[in-house]
Protein backbone atom coordinates (compact mmCIF):
# COMPACT_ATOMS: atom_id res chain seq x y z
CA UNK A 1 0.00 0.00 0.00
CA UNK A 2 2.65 2.42 1.09
CA UNK A 3 4.87 1.54 -1.84
CA UNK A 4 1.98 1.99 -4.26
CA UNK A 5 1.05 5.35 -2.76
CA UNK A 6 4.66 6.47 -2.92
CA UNK A 7 4.98 5.39 -6.55
CA UNK A 8 1.69 7.03 -7.50
CA UNK A 9 2.79 10.26 -5.88
CA UNK A 10 6.06 10.15 -7.73
CA UNK A 11 4.21 9.71 -11.04
CA UNK A 12 1.95 12.64 -10.13
CA UNK A 13 4.92 14.88 -9.47
CA UNK A 14 6.65 13.75 -12.67
CA UNK A 15 3.43 14.56 -14.51
CA UNK A 16 3.34 18.05 -13.03
CA UNK A 17 6.95 18.49 -14.06
CA UNK A 18 6.02 17.61 -17.64
CA UNK A 19 8.12 14.43 -17.59
CA UNK A 20 5.28 12.05 -18.44
CA UNK A 21 3.58 11.90 -21.81
CA UNK A 22 -0.17 11.46 -21.68
CA UNK A 23 -2.24 10.93 -18.54
CA UNK A 24 -1.50 9.75 -15.02
CA UNK A 25 -4.12 7.81 -13.10
CA UNK A 26 -3.83 7.24 -9.38
CA UNK A 27 -5.28 4.71 -6.97
CA UNK A 28 -5.34 7.12 -4.04
CA UNK A 29 -7.86 5.88 -1.49
CA UNK A 30 -8.17 2.47 -3.13
CA UNK A 31 -4.89 0.91 -2.06
CA UNK A 32 -6.38 -1.19 0.76
CA UNK A 33 -8.85 -2.86 -1.57
CA UNK A 34 -6.42 -3.25 -4.42
CA UNK A 35 -3.58 -4.65 -2.33
CA UNK A 36 -5.98 -7.14 -0.78
CA UNK A 37 -6.74 -8.50 -4.24
CA UNK A 38 -3.08 -8.84 -5.18
CA UNK A 39 -2.03 -10.33 -1.85
CA UNK A 40 -4.68 -13.03 -1.97
CA UNK A 41 -3.65 -14.22 -5.39
CA UNK A 42 -0.89 -16.77 -5.87
CA UNK A 43 1.63 -17.40 -8.56
CA UNK A 44 -0.27 -19.09 -11.37
CA UNK A 45 -3.44 -17.08 -10.80
CA UNK A 46 -4.61 -14.50 -13.30
CA UNK A 47 -4.97 -10.82 -12.56
CA UNK A 48 -6.44 -8.11 -14.76
CA UNK A 49 -6.12 -4.84 -12.87
CA UNK A 50 -7.54 -1.51 -13.97
CA UNK A 51 -6.47 2.11 -13.67
CA UNK A 52 -6.44 2.42 -9.86
CA UNK A 53 -4.62 -0.77 -9.00
CA UNK A 54 -0.99 0.12 -8.47
CA UNK A 55 -1.17 -1.55 -5.05
CA UNK A 56 -2.67 -4.77 -6.41
CA UNK A 57 -0.21 -4.85 -9.28
CA UNK A 58 2.79 -4.64 -6.94
CA UNK A 59 1.28 -7.20 -4.60
CA UNK A 60 0.71 -9.55 -7.52
CA UNK A 61 4.38 -9.26 -8.41
CA UNK A 62 4.77 -6.38 -10.80
CA UNK A 63 8.15 -4.72 -10.37
CA UNK A 64 8.53 -1.03 -9.72
CA UNK A 65 10.70 -0.94 -12.79
CA UNK A 66 7.95 -2.28 -15.08
CA UNK A 67 5.66 0.46 -13.82
CA UNK A 68 8.26 3.22 -14.06
CA UNK A 69 9.44 2.15 -17.49
CA UNK A 70 5.92 2.14 -18.88
CA UNK A 71 4.99 5.52 -17.45
CA UNK A 72 8.28 7.06 -18.55
CA UNK A 73 8.26 5.52 -22.01
CA UNK A 74 11.45 3.48 -21.68
CA UNK A 75 12.11 1.28 -24.68
CA UNK A 76 13.12 -1.47 -22.25
CA UNK A 77 9.76 -1.68 -20.47
CA UNK A 78 7.24 -4.45 -21.06
CA UNK A 79 5.26 -2.23 -23.45
CA UNK A 80 8.34 -0.73 -25.18
CA UNK A 81 6.67 2.66 -25.57
CA UNK A 82 3.98 1.18 -27.76
CA UNK A 83 1.50 1.50 -24.93
CA UNK A 84 1.80 3.56 -21.78
CA UNK A 85 0.84 4.39 -18.21
CA UNK A 86 -1.68 1.91 -16.75
CA UNK A 87 -1.91 -0.08 -19.99
CA UNK A 88 0.74 -2.59 -19.08
CA UNK A 89 1.09 -6.21 -18.15
CA UNK A 90 2.76 -9.49 -18.87
CA UNK A 91 0.15 -11.88 -20.25
CA UNK A 92 2.40 -14.91 -20.04
CA UNK A 93 2.71 -14.35 -16.31
CA UNK A 94 -1.05 -14.16 -15.83
CA UNK A 95 -0.89 -10.38 -15.59
CA UNK A 96 -3.21 -9.05 -18.28
CA UNK A 97 -2.65 -5.57 -19.77
CA UNK A 98 -5.88 -3.63 -19.78
CA UNK A 99 -7.32 -1.97 -22.83
CA UNK A 100 -9.13 1.30 -22.15
CA UNK A 101 -12.56 0.06 -23.10
CA UNK A 102 -14.25 -0.49 -19.77
CA UNK A 103 -15.69 -3.90 -19.06
CA UNK A 104 -13.53 -5.59 -21.66
CA UNK A 105 -11.18 -7.39 -19.29
CA UNK A 106 -13.72 -9.56 -17.46
CA UNK A 107 -14.55 -11.89 -20.34
CA UNK A 108 -10.85 -12.19 -21.15
CA UNK A 109 -10.18 -13.39 -17.62
CA UNK A 110 -13.06 -15.81 -18.11
CA UNK A 111 -11.29 -17.11 -21.18
CA UNK A 112 -8.07 -17.78 -19.32
CA UNK A 113 -10.06 -19.73 -16.74
CA UNK A 114 -11.92 -21.71 -19.38
CA UNK A 115 -8.60 -22.57 -21.00
CA UNK A 116 -7.23 -23.80 -17.72
CA UNK A 117 -10.24 -26.02 -17.35
CA UNK A 118 -9.58 -27.44 -20.84
CA UNK A 119 -5.96 -27.98 -19.95
CA UNK A 120 -6.78 -29.60 -16.63
CA UNK A 121 -5.06 -26.89 -14.60
CA UNK A 122 -6.96 -26.83 -11.34
CA UNK A 123 -7.30 -24.53 -8.39
CA UNK A 124 -6.22 -21.31 -10.03
CA UNK A 125 -8.43 -18.25 -9.90
CA UNK A 126 -8.76 -15.13 -12.00
CA UNK A 127 -9.37 -11.72 -10.47
CA UNK A 128 -10.21 -8.45 -12.10
CA UNK A 129 -11.06 -4.99 -10.80
CA UNK A 130 -13.51 -2.48 -12.13
CA UNK A 131 -15.16 0.78 -11.10
CA UNK A 132 -18.85 1.18 -10.42
CA UNK A 133 -19.17 3.20 -13.62
CA UNK A 134 -17.99 0.34 -15.75
CA UNK A 135 -20.71 -1.91 -14.34
CA UNK A 136 -23.01 -0.01 -16.72
CA UNK A 137 -21.37 -1.53 -19.77
CA UNK A 138 -22.90 -4.34 -21.73
CA UNK A 139 -19.54 -6.09 -21.52
CA UNK A 140 -19.82 -6.26 -17.75
CA UNK A 141 -23.20 -7.94 -17.91
CA UNK A 142 -22.25 -10.36 -20.64
CA UNK A 143 -19.06 -11.39 -18.90
CA UNK A 144 -20.41 -11.91 -15.40
CA UNK A 145 -23.28 -13.90 -16.78
CA UNK A 146 -20.84 -15.95 -18.84
CA UNK A 147 -18.72 -16.64 -15.77
CA UNK A 148 -21.80 -17.66 -13.81
CA UNK A 149 -23.04 -20.01 -16.52
CA UNK A 150 -19.60 -21.61 -16.72
CA UNK A 151 -19.17 -21.50 -12.95
CA UNK A 152 -15.70 -20.05 -13.39
CA UNK A 153 -13.35 -19.24 -10.51
CA UNK A 154 -13.64 -15.51 -11.19
CA UNK A 155 -13.27 -12.85 -8.51
CA UNK A 156 -14.81 -9.64 -9.76
CA UNK A 157 -13.89 -6.70 -7.56
CA UNK A 158 -15.98 -3.56 -7.92
CA UNK A 159 -14.63 -0.39 -6.35
CA UNK A 160 -17.60 1.87 -5.85
CA UNK A 161 -15.62 5.07 -5.44
CA UNK A 162 -18.78 7.17 -5.93
CA UNK A 163 -17.71 8.82 -9.17
CA UNK A 164 -17.03 7.74 -12.70
CA UNK A 165 -15.01 10.70 -13.92
CA UNK A 166 -17.51 13.46 -12.94
CA UNK A 167 -20.60 11.25 -12.93
CA UNK A 168 -21.94 10.28 -9.50
CA UNK A 169 -23.08 6.71 -8.83
CA UNK A 170 -26.70 7.86 -8.82
CA UNK A 171 -26.41 8.45 -12.59
CA UNK A 172 -24.86 5.01 -13.05
CA UNK A 173 -27.25 2.62 -11.30
CA UNK A 174 -30.47 2.77 -9.32
CA UNK A 175 -30.13 -0.24 -7.03
CA UNK A 176 -29.17 0.27 -3.39
CA UNK A 177 -25.98 -1.71 -3.64
CA UNK A 178 -24.32 -3.28 -6.65
CA UNK A 179 -23.95 -6.39 -4.51
CA UNK A 180 -27.73 -6.82 -4.83
CA UNK A 181 -27.20 -7.65 -8.47
CA UNK A 182 -25.14 -10.73 -7.70
CA UNK A 183 -28.10 -12.94 -6.88
CA UNK A 184 -29.68 -12.06 -10.23
CA UNK A 185 -26.61 -13.45 -11.93
CA UNK A 186 -26.47 -16.41 -9.59
CA UNK A 187 -23.11 -15.50 -8.09
CA UNK A 188 -21.93 -14.93 -4.52
CA UNK A 189 -21.71 -11.38 -3.23
CA UNK A 190 -19.39 -9.83 -0.68
CA UNK A 191 -19.55 -6.24 0.55
CA UNK A 192 -16.70 -4.48 2.24
CA UNK A 193 -15.65 -1.12 3.62
CA UNK A 194 -12.85 -0.26 1.22
CA UNK A 195 -11.20 2.11 3.66
CA UNK A 196 -10.38 -0.72 6.13
CA UNK A 197 -7.37 -2.79 5.16
CA UNK A 198 -8.15 -5.60 7.59
CA UNK A 199 -11.71 -5.92 6.29
CA UNK A 200 -10.52 -5.90 2.69
CA UNK A 201 -7.92 -8.55 3.39
CA UNK A 202 -10.36 -10.91 5.05
CA UNK A 203 -13.18 -10.41 2.55
CA UNK A 204 -10.87 -10.90 -0.39
CA UNK A 205 -9.31 -13.94 1.28
CA UNK A 206 -12.75 -15.47 1.58
CA UNK A 207 -13.82 -14.56 -1.94
CA UNK A 208 -10.63 -15.90 -3.51
CA UNK A 209 -10.82 -19.05 -1.42
CA UNK A 210 -14.44 -19.71 -2.39
CA UNK A 211 -13.61 -19.24 -6.06
CA UNK A 212 -10.64 -21.58 -5.68
CA UNK A 213 -12.80 -24.18 -3.96
CA UNK A 214 -15.20 -24.30 -6.91
CA UNK A 215 -18.06 -22.12 -5.71
CA UNK A 216 -18.13 -20.16 -8.94
CA UNK A 217 -17.77 -16.42 -9.49
CA UNK A 218 -17.48 -14.12 -6.51
CA UNK A 219 -18.51 -10.50 -6.70
CA UNK A 220 -16.88 -8.16 -4.21
CA UNK A 221 -18.29 -4.66 -3.82
CA UNK A 222 -16.26 -2.13 -1.89
CA UNK A 223 -17.46 1.24 -0.66
CA UNK A 224 -14.89 4.02 -0.74
CA UNK A 225 -14.14 7.39 -2.31
CA UNK A 226 -11.73 8.31 -5.06
CA UNK A 227 -9.30 10.62 -3.25
CA UNK A 228 -7.88 12.15 -6.43
CA UNK A 229 -9.03 13.41 -9.79
CA UNK A 230 -10.10 11.01 -12.49
CA UNK A 231 -6.60 11.58 -13.81
CA UNK A 232 -4.02 14.09 -12.72
CA UNK A 233 -5.42 16.57 -15.26
CA UNK A 234 -8.66 16.71 -13.27
CA UNK A 235 -9.09 18.77 -10.08
CA UNK A 236 -12.23 16.80 -9.13
CA UNK A 237 -13.96 19.98 -7.97
CA UNK A 238 -17.27 18.22 -8.57
CA UNK A 239 -16.78 15.80 -5.64
CA UNK A 240 -19.37 16.47 -2.93
CA UNK A 241 -17.57 17.83 0.17
CA UNK A 242 -20.01 15.90 2.37
CA UNK A 243 -18.69 12.68 0.90
CA UNK A 244 -15.13 13.76 1.60
CA UNK A 245 -16.06 14.42 5.22
CA UNK A 246 -17.96 11.13 5.58
CA UNK A 247 -16.43 7.78 6.64
CA UNK A 248 -16.21 6.89 2.93
CA UNK A 249 -13.74 9.71 2.50
CA UNK A 250 -11.23 8.30 4.98
CA UNK A 251 -7.78 7.63 3.60
CA UNK A 252 -7.26 3.87 3.82
CA UNK A 253 -3.53 4.35 4.25
CA UNK A 254 -3.95 6.62 7.25
CA UNK A 255 -6.57 4.30 8.72
CA UNK A 256 -4.17 1.37 8.37
CA UNK A 257 -1.36 3.34 9.99
CA UNK A 258 -3.60 4.33 12.87
CA UNK A 259 -4.54 0.70 13.37
CA UNK A 260 -0.93 -0.38 13.44
CA UNK A 261 -0.13 2.27 16.01
CA UNK A 262 -3.14 1.69 18.24
CA UNK A 263 -2.59 -2.06 18.28
CA UNK A 264 1.10 -1.42 18.84
CA UNK A 265 2.00 -3.63 15.92
CA UNK A 266 4.34 -0.91 14.75
CA UNK A 267 5.54 2.36 16.16
CA UNK A 268 5.90 5.67 14.40
CA UNK A 269 9.64 5.22 13.90
CA UNK A 270 9.14 1.88 12.17
CA UNK A 271 6.46 3.32 9.90
CA UNK A 272 8.72 6.24 9.05
CA UNK A 273 11.43 3.72 8.22
CA UNK A 274 9.06 1.93 5.82
CA UNK A 275 8.21 5.25 4.24
CA UNK A 276 11.88 6.08 3.65
CA UNK A 277 12.48 2.66 2.23
CA UNK A 278 9.53 3.06 -0.15
CA UNK A 279 10.76 6.46 -1.31
CA UNK A 280 14.22 5.07 -1.86
CA UNK A 281 12.99 2.13 -3.95
CA UNK A 282 10.70 4.33 -6.01
CA UNK A 283 13.40 6.92 -6.65
CA UNK A 284 15.76 4.18 -7.72
CA UNK A 285 13.31 2.65 -10.20
CA UNK A 286 12.36 6.02 -11.64
CA UNK A 287 16.00 7.09 -11.97
CA UNK A 288 16.78 3.87 -13.82
CA UNK A 289 13.85 4.27 -16.18
CA UNK A 290 14.75 7.90 -16.85
CA UNK A 291 18.28 6.92 -17.86
CA UNK A 292 17.08 4.35 -20.36
CA UNK A 293 16.61 4.91 -24.08
CA UNK A 294 13.23 5.96 -25.42
CA UNK A 295 11.83 4.06 -28.38
CA UNK A 296 13.47 4.76 -31.72
CA UNK A 297 11.04 4.87 -34.65
CA UNK A 298 13.80 3.71 -36.98
CA UNK A 299 14.39 0.58 -34.93
CA UNK A 300 10.68 -0.20 -34.59
CA UNK A 301 9.57 -3.03 -36.82
CA UNK A 302 6.12 -1.42 -37.30
CA UNK A 303 4.58 -4.83 -37.42
CA UNK A 304 1.31 -5.75 -35.73
CA UNK A 305 1.28 -9.38 -36.86
CA UNK A 306 2.98 -12.36 -35.30
CA UNK A 307 3.07 -13.87 -38.80
CA UNK A 308 5.83 -11.60 -39.97
CA UNK A 309 5.84 -13.16 -43.44
CA UNK A 310 2.25 -12.00 -43.95
CA UNK A 311 2.90 -8.34 -43.24
CA UNK A 312 2.06 -6.07 -46.16
CA UNK A 313 4.24 -3.18 -47.14
CA UNK A 314 2.70 0.21 -47.69
CA UNK A 315 4.14 3.42 -49.08
CA UNK A 316 6.55 4.98 -46.60
CA UNK A 317 4.97 7.35 -44.13
Amino acid at each position, binding site marked *: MLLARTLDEKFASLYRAGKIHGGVFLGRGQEALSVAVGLNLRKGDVFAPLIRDQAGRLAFGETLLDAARTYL*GSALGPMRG*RDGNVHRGRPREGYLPMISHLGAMIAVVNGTLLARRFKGVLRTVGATCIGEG*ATSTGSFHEAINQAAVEKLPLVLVIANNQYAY*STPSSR*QFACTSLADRASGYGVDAHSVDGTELAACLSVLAEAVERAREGHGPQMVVARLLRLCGHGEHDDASYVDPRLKASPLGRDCLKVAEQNLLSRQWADAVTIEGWRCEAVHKVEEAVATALREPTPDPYKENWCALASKHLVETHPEV
Partner: protein
Amino acid sequence: MSITYLEAIREAQARALAEDPRVFIYGQDVGAFGGAFKATKNLAQEFPGRVIDAPISEDAIVGAAIGAAVEGMRPIIEMQFADFSTPGFNQIVNHAATLYWRTQVPCPITIRLPSGGTSGSGPFHSQSMETLYAHYPGLIVMTPATVEDAYSMLLEAVALDDPVIFCEHKLLYNHLKAESLPTEAVPVGKARLARPGRDMTIVAYSAMVHEALAVADELASEGTEVEIVDLRSIKPLDTDTVMASVARTGRLLCVGESWPWGGVTAEVVSRVACEGFGLLDAPPQRLNAKDTPVPYHPNLWAAHRPTARSIAAAARRLLRI
Protein backbone atom coordinates in the same frame (compact mmCIF):
# COMPACT_ATOMS: atom_id res chain seq x y z
CA MET B 1 -12.79 38.10 -30.98
CA SER B 2 -11.32 34.73 -31.79
CA ILE B 3 -12.94 31.34 -31.50
CA THR B 4 -11.43 27.87 -31.38
CA TYR B 5 -12.56 24.73 -33.17
CA LEU B 6 -13.73 23.38 -29.81
CA GLU B 7 -15.65 26.53 -28.97
CA ALA B 8 -17.26 26.42 -32.41
CA ILE B 9 -18.52 22.92 -31.63
CA ARG B 10 -19.88 24.14 -28.33
CA GLU B 11 -21.49 27.17 -29.96
CA ALA B 12 -23.11 25.05 -32.67
CA GLN B 13 -24.65 22.83 -30.03
CA ALA B 14 -25.83 25.86 -28.04
CA ARG B 15 -27.49 27.23 -31.14
CA ALA B 16 -29.07 23.90 -32.05
CA LEU B 17 -30.48 23.61 -28.52
CA ALA B 18 -31.74 27.21 -28.61
CA GLU B 19 -33.37 26.99 -32.00
CA ASP B 20 -34.83 23.51 -31.96
CA PRO B 21 -36.71 22.09 -28.98
CA ARG B 22 -36.26 18.60 -30.42
CA VAL B 23 -32.51 18.71 -29.79
CA PHE B 24 -30.95 17.22 -26.68
CA ILE B 25 -27.42 16.12 -25.80
CA TYR B 26 -26.61 12.76 -24.26
CA GLY B 27 -23.21 11.37 -23.30
CA GLN B 28 -20.81 10.62 -20.47
CA ASP B 29 -19.93 13.62 -18.28
CA VAL B 30 -21.58 16.08 -20.72
CA GLY B 31 -23.80 17.67 -18.05
CA ALA B 32 -22.56 19.92 -15.25
CA PHE B 33 -18.98 18.85 -15.99
CA GLY B 34 -19.20 20.03 -19.60
CA GLY B 35 -17.68 16.93 -21.19
CA ALA B 36 -14.19 15.43 -21.10
CA PHE B 37 -13.00 18.09 -23.57
CA LYS B 38 -15.44 20.83 -22.46
CA ALA B 39 -17.37 20.71 -25.73
CA THR B 40 -20.63 21.05 -23.78
CA LYS B 41 -19.37 23.59 -21.24
CA ASN B 42 -22.26 25.38 -19.48
CA LEU B 43 -24.86 23.88 -21.81
CA ALA B 44 -26.50 21.90 -19.00
CA GLN B 45 -26.90 25.13 -17.03
CA GLU B 46 -28.20 27.07 -20.03
CA PHE B 47 -30.58 24.35 -21.18
CA PRO B 48 -31.80 22.58 -18.05
CA GLY B 49 -32.91 19.00 -18.54
CA ARG B 50 -31.65 18.83 -22.12
CA VAL B 51 -28.00 17.95 -21.59
CA ILE B 52 -27.94 14.61 -19.86
CA ASP B 53 -25.17 12.53 -18.28
CA ALA B 54 -25.25 8.96 -19.51
CA PRO B 55 -24.01 5.82 -17.79
CA ILE B 56 -20.98 4.13 -19.36
CA SER B 57 -23.25 2.31 -21.80
CA GLU B 58 -22.45 3.23 -25.39
CA ASP B 59 -24.75 0.58 -26.82
CA ALA B 60 -27.66 1.89 -24.77
CA ILE B 61 -26.72 5.51 -25.46
CA VAL B 62 -27.00 5.03 -29.22
CA GLY B 63 -30.02 2.77 -28.85
CA ALA B 64 -31.84 5.41 -26.82
CA ALA B 65 -30.92 8.07 -29.38
CA ILE B 66 -32.47 5.96 -32.11
CA GLY B 67 -35.64 5.53 -30.07
CA ALA B 68 -35.82 9.25 -29.40
CA ALA B 69 -35.30 9.97 -33.09
CA VAL B 70 -38.21 7.71 -33.96
CA GLU B 71 -40.27 9.89 -31.63
CA GLY B 72 -39.20 12.97 -33.58
CA MET B 73 -36.33 14.18 -31.40
CA ARG B 74 -32.87 15.18 -32.71
CA PRO B 75 -30.34 13.82 -30.25
CA ILE B 76 -26.69 14.79 -30.28
CA ILE B 77 -24.54 12.03 -28.80
CA GLU B 78 -21.07 12.68 -27.49
CA MET B 79 -18.77 9.68 -27.35
CA GLN B 80 -16.05 10.41 -24.80
CA PHE B 81 -13.50 9.37 -27.41
CA ALA B 82 -14.13 8.08 -30.95
CA ASP B 83 -12.48 4.84 -29.83
CA PHE B 84 -15.31 4.22 -27.35
CA SER B 85 -17.95 4.24 -30.06
CA THR B 86 -17.14 0.59 -30.70
CA PRO B 87 -19.40 -0.77 -27.94
CA GLY B 88 -22.14 1.26 -29.67
CA PHE B 89 -21.10 0.07 -33.11
CA ASN B 90 -23.91 -2.45 -33.42
CA GLN B 91 -26.62 0.12 -32.77
CA ILE B 92 -24.98 2.61 -35.12
CA VAL B 93 -24.36 0.43 -38.16
CA ASN B 94 -27.15 -2.11 -37.85
CA HIS B 95 -29.90 -0.03 -36.36
CA ALA B 96 -29.48 3.69 -36.98
CA ALA B 97 -28.03 3.17 -40.44
CA THR B 98 -30.75 0.80 -41.64
CA LEU B 99 -33.86 2.32 -40.09
CA TYR B 100 -34.84 4.74 -42.85
CA TRP B 101 -34.16 2.23 -45.60
CA ARG B 102 -36.26 -0.41 -43.90
CA THR B 103 -39.15 1.76 -42.72
CA GLN B 104 -39.01 5.19 -44.41
CA VAL B 105 -38.86 6.65 -40.90
CA PRO B 106 -35.80 8.90 -40.70
CA CYS B 107 -33.20 8.58 -37.95
CA PRO B 108 -31.81 12.07 -37.37
CA ILE B 109 -29.10 11.49 -34.80
CA THR B 110 -25.71 13.16 -34.64
CA ILE B 111 -22.88 11.19 -33.08
CA ARG B 112 -19.87 13.31 -32.19
CA LEU B 113 -16.58 11.41 -32.18
CA PRO B 114 -13.54 13.15 -30.65
CA SER B 115 -11.13 11.64 -33.14
CA GLY B 116 -7.57 11.27 -34.18
CA GLY B 117 -4.23 11.06 -32.54
CA THR B 118 -2.64 13.33 -30.01
CA SER B 119 0.79 12.75 -28.56
CA GLY B 120 0.92 10.37 -25.60
CA SER B 121 -2.64 9.10 -25.98
CA GLY B 122 -1.90 5.55 -27.08
CA PRO B 123 -3.88 2.92 -28.96
CA PHE B 124 -7.29 3.47 -27.36
CA HIS B 125 -7.58 7.25 -27.29
CA SER B 126 -6.27 8.10 -30.76
CA GLN B 127 -8.30 6.32 -33.37
CA SER B 128 -9.80 7.68 -36.56
CA MET B 129 -12.99 5.74 -37.17
CA GLU B 130 -14.37 7.48 -40.27
CA THR B 131 -13.53 4.65 -42.64
CA LEU B 132 -15.44 2.05 -40.67
CA TYR B 133 -18.59 4.13 -40.50
CA ALA B 134 -18.36 5.33 -44.09
CA HIS B 135 -18.42 1.73 -45.24
CA TYR B 136 -21.98 1.28 -44.01
CA PRO B 137 -24.86 2.49 -46.19
CA GLY B 138 -27.22 4.86 -44.41
CA LEU B 139 -24.67 7.00 -42.58
CA ILE B 140 -23.23 10.42 -43.35
CA VAL B 141 -19.64 10.97 -42.20
CA MET B 142 -18.31 14.48 -41.66
CA THR B 143 -14.66 15.34 -41.04
CA PRO B 144 -14.39 19.12 -40.57
CA ALA B 145 -10.91 20.65 -40.83
CA THR B 146 -11.68 24.27 -40.01
CA VAL B 147 -13.37 26.21 -37.24
CA GLU B 148 -15.98 27.40 -39.71
CA ASP B 149 -16.78 23.87 -40.86
CA ALA B 150 -16.86 22.53 -37.31
CA TYR B 151 -19.60 25.04 -36.61
CA SER B 152 -21.66 24.97 -39.77
CA MET B 153 -21.36 21.25 -40.44
CA LEU B 154 -22.42 20.36 -36.92
CA LEU B 155 -25.52 22.51 -37.35
CA GLU B 156 -26.16 20.83 -40.66
CA ALA B 157 -25.64 17.41 -39.09
CA VAL B 158 -28.35 18.12 -36.56
CA ALA B 159 -30.70 19.43 -39.25
CA LEU B 160 -30.21 16.44 -41.57
CA ASP B 161 -32.71 13.60 -41.45
CA ASP B 162 -30.03 10.91 -41.41
CA PRO B 163 -27.61 9.59 -38.81
CA VAL B 164 -24.41 11.61 -38.98
CA ILE B 165 -21.03 10.54 -37.68
CA PHE B 166 -19.28 13.79 -36.83
CA CYS B 167 -15.53 13.24 -36.59
CA GLU B 168 -13.99 16.21 -34.79
CA HIS B 169 -10.22 16.15 -34.49
CA LYS B 170 -8.85 16.49 -30.94
CA LEU B 171 -5.60 17.99 -32.19
CA LEU B 172 -7.54 20.92 -33.66
CA TYR B 173 -9.69 21.56 -30.59
CA ASN B 174 -7.63 24.31 -29.01
CA HIS B 175 -4.96 25.00 -31.63
CA LEU B 176 -7.20 26.06 -34.46
CA LYS B 177 -8.70 29.54 -34.22
CA ALA B 178 -10.86 31.73 -36.43
CA GLU B 179 -11.85 35.36 -36.15
CA SER B 180 -15.55 34.68 -35.95
CA LEU B 181 -18.26 32.14 -36.56
CA PRO B 182 -19.35 31.79 -40.17
CA THR B 183 -22.64 33.26 -41.36
CA GLU B 184 -22.85 31.08 -44.44
CA ALA B 185 -21.52 27.68 -45.30
CA VAL B 186 -20.61 25.40 -48.16
CA PRO B 187 -23.29 22.68 -48.22
CA VAL B 188 -22.47 19.20 -46.97
CA GLY B 189 -21.27 16.99 -49.77
CA LYS B 190 -19.12 19.71 -51.33
CA ALA B 191 -15.37 19.68 -50.92
CA ARG B 192 -13.43 22.91 -50.54
CA LEU B 193 -10.42 24.14 -52.42
CA ALA B 194 -8.21 24.94 -49.45
CA ARG B 195 -5.44 26.29 -51.69
CA PRO B 196 -5.20 26.63 -55.46
CA GLY B 197 -2.18 25.36 -57.37
CA ARG B 198 -1.34 23.94 -60.77
CA ASP B 199 1.38 21.32 -60.28
CA MET B 200 -0.22 18.63 -58.14
CA THR B 201 -3.31 17.95 -56.05
CA ILE B 202 -3.22 16.88 -52.43
CA VAL B 203 -6.56 15.58 -51.21
CA ALA B 204 -6.88 15.56 -47.41
CA TYR B 205 -9.44 15.88 -44.66
CA SER B 206 -9.57 16.73 -40.98
CA ALA B 207 -6.22 17.47 -39.30
CA MET B 208 -4.26 16.31 -42.36
CA VAL B 209 -5.47 19.38 -44.27
CA HIS B 210 -3.23 21.48 -42.07
CA GLU B 211 -0.23 19.22 -42.58
CA ALA B 212 -0.87 19.47 -46.33
CA LEU B 213 -1.11 23.26 -46.17
CA ALA B 214 2.28 23.38 -44.47
CA VAL B 215 3.67 21.24 -47.30
CA ALA B 216 2.19 23.57 -49.90
CA ASP B 217 3.94 26.51 -48.25
CA GLU B 218 7.20 24.65 -48.22
CA LEU B 219 6.97 23.53 -51.84
CA ALA B 220 5.86 26.98 -52.94
CA SER B 221 9.24 28.28 -51.87
CA GLU B 222 10.76 25.74 -54.28
CA GLY B 223 8.52 26.94 -57.09
CA THR B 224 5.95 24.14 -56.98
CA GLU B 225 2.28 25.04 -56.69
CA VAL B 226 0.29 22.47 -54.78
CA GLU B 227 -3.48 22.51 -54.91
CA ILE B 228 -5.21 21.28 -51.77
CA VAL B 229 -8.68 19.82 -51.66
CA ASP B 230 -10.30 19.52 -48.24
CA LEU B 231 -12.94 16.80 -48.52
CA ARG B 232 -14.97 18.14 -45.53
CA SER B 233 -17.27 15.13 -45.60
CA ILE B 234 -15.94 11.74 -46.61
CA LYS B 235 -19.44 10.39 -47.15
CA PRO B 236 -20.75 11.75 -49.36
CA LEU B 237 -17.41 12.21 -51.07
CA ASP B 238 -17.23 15.04 -53.59
CA THR B 239 -15.61 13.25 -56.51
CA ASP B 240 -16.36 16.15 -58.90
CA THR B 241 -14.19 18.64 -57.03
CA VAL B 242 -11.36 16.12 -56.75
CA MET B 243 -11.61 15.25 -60.43
CA ALA B 244 -11.69 18.91 -61.48
CA SER B 245 -8.54 19.52 -59.48
CA VAL B 246 -6.76 16.51 -60.94
CA ALA B 247 -7.81 17.69 -64.39
CA ARG B 248 -5.89 20.90 -63.68
CA THR B 249 -2.80 19.36 -62.10
CA GLY B 250 -2.48 15.84 -63.52
CA ARG B 251 -1.04 14.57 -60.22
CA LEU B 252 -2.78 13.23 -57.14
CA LEU B 253 -1.59 12.50 -53.62
CA CYS B 254 -4.26 11.57 -51.11
CA VAL B 255 -3.45 11.79 -47.40
CA GLY B 256 -5.28 10.30 -44.43
CA GLU B 257 -4.50 9.76 -40.76
CA SER B 258 -6.15 6.37 -40.51
CA TRP B 259 -4.72 2.99 -41.46
CA PRO B 260 -3.52 2.09 -44.94
CA TRP B 261 -5.78 -0.85 -45.74
CA GLY B 262 -8.74 0.60 -47.62
CA GLY B 263 -10.21 3.79 -46.34
CA VAL B 264 -10.74 7.28 -47.64
CA THR B 265 -7.46 7.59 -49.51
CA ALA B 266 -8.07 4.27 -51.27
CA GLU B 267 -11.58 5.36 -52.18
CA VAL B 268 -10.40 8.66 -53.66
CA VAL B 269 -7.60 7.03 -55.61
CA SER B 270 -9.88 4.33 -56.95
CA ARG B 271 -12.47 6.85 -58.08
CA VAL B 272 -9.88 8.98 -59.84
CA ALA B 273 -8.28 5.93 -61.42
CA CYS B 274 -11.60 4.60 -62.66
CA GLU B 275 -13.23 7.81 -63.76
CA GLY B 276 -10.31 10.05 -64.55
CA PHE B 277 -7.43 7.82 -65.60
CA GLY B 278 -6.80 9.97 -68.64
CA LEU B 279 -6.39 13.06 -66.48
CA LEU B 280 -3.38 11.61 -64.68
CA ASP B 281 0.18 12.33 -65.71
CA ALA B 282 1.56 10.01 -63.01
CA PRO B 283 0.26 7.10 -60.93
CA PRO B 284 -2.01 8.40 -58.13
CA GLN B 285 -0.41 8.16 -54.68
CA ARG B 286 -1.72 7.72 -51.18
CA LEU B 287 -0.21 8.21 -47.75
CA ASN B 288 -1.66 6.91 -44.49
CA ALA B 289 -0.63 5.99 -40.98
CA LYS B 290 1.44 2.86 -40.52
CA ASP B 291 -0.34 -0.48 -40.28
CA THR B 292 -0.06 -0.88 -36.49
CA PRO B 293 -2.17 0.37 -33.59
CA VAL B 294 -1.47 4.01 -32.72
CA PRO B 295 1.59 4.00 -30.47
CA TYR B 296 1.75 5.76 -27.13
CA HIS B 297 5.25 7.19 -27.09
CA PRO B 298 5.62 10.55 -28.86
CA ASN B 299 8.71 9.30 -30.75
CA LEU B 300 6.69 6.49 -32.24
CA TRP B 301 3.47 8.43 -32.64
CA ALA B 302 5.16 11.14 -34.69
CA ALA B 303 6.52 8.49 -37.05
CA HIS B 304 3.24 6.57 -37.22
CA ARG B 305 1.07 9.27 -38.73
CA PRO B 306 1.70 11.29 -41.88
CA THR B 307 3.26 14.65 -41.11
CA ALA B 308 4.21 17.66 -43.20
CA ARG B 309 7.64 16.09 -43.53
CA SER B 310 6.51 12.73 -44.87
CA ILE B 311 3.84 14.33 -47.03
CA ALA B 312 6.44 16.66 -48.54
CA ALA B 313 8.66 13.68 -49.28
CA ALA B 314 5.77 11.86 -50.96
CA ALA B 315 4.87 14.99 -52.90
CA ARG B 316 8.44 15.40 -54.17
CA ARG B 317 8.54 11.76 -55.25
CA LEU B 318 5.29 12.23 -57.13
CA LEU B 319 6.58 15.36 -58.86
CA ARG B 320 9.61 13.44 -60.10
CA ILE B 321 7.55 10.67 -61.73
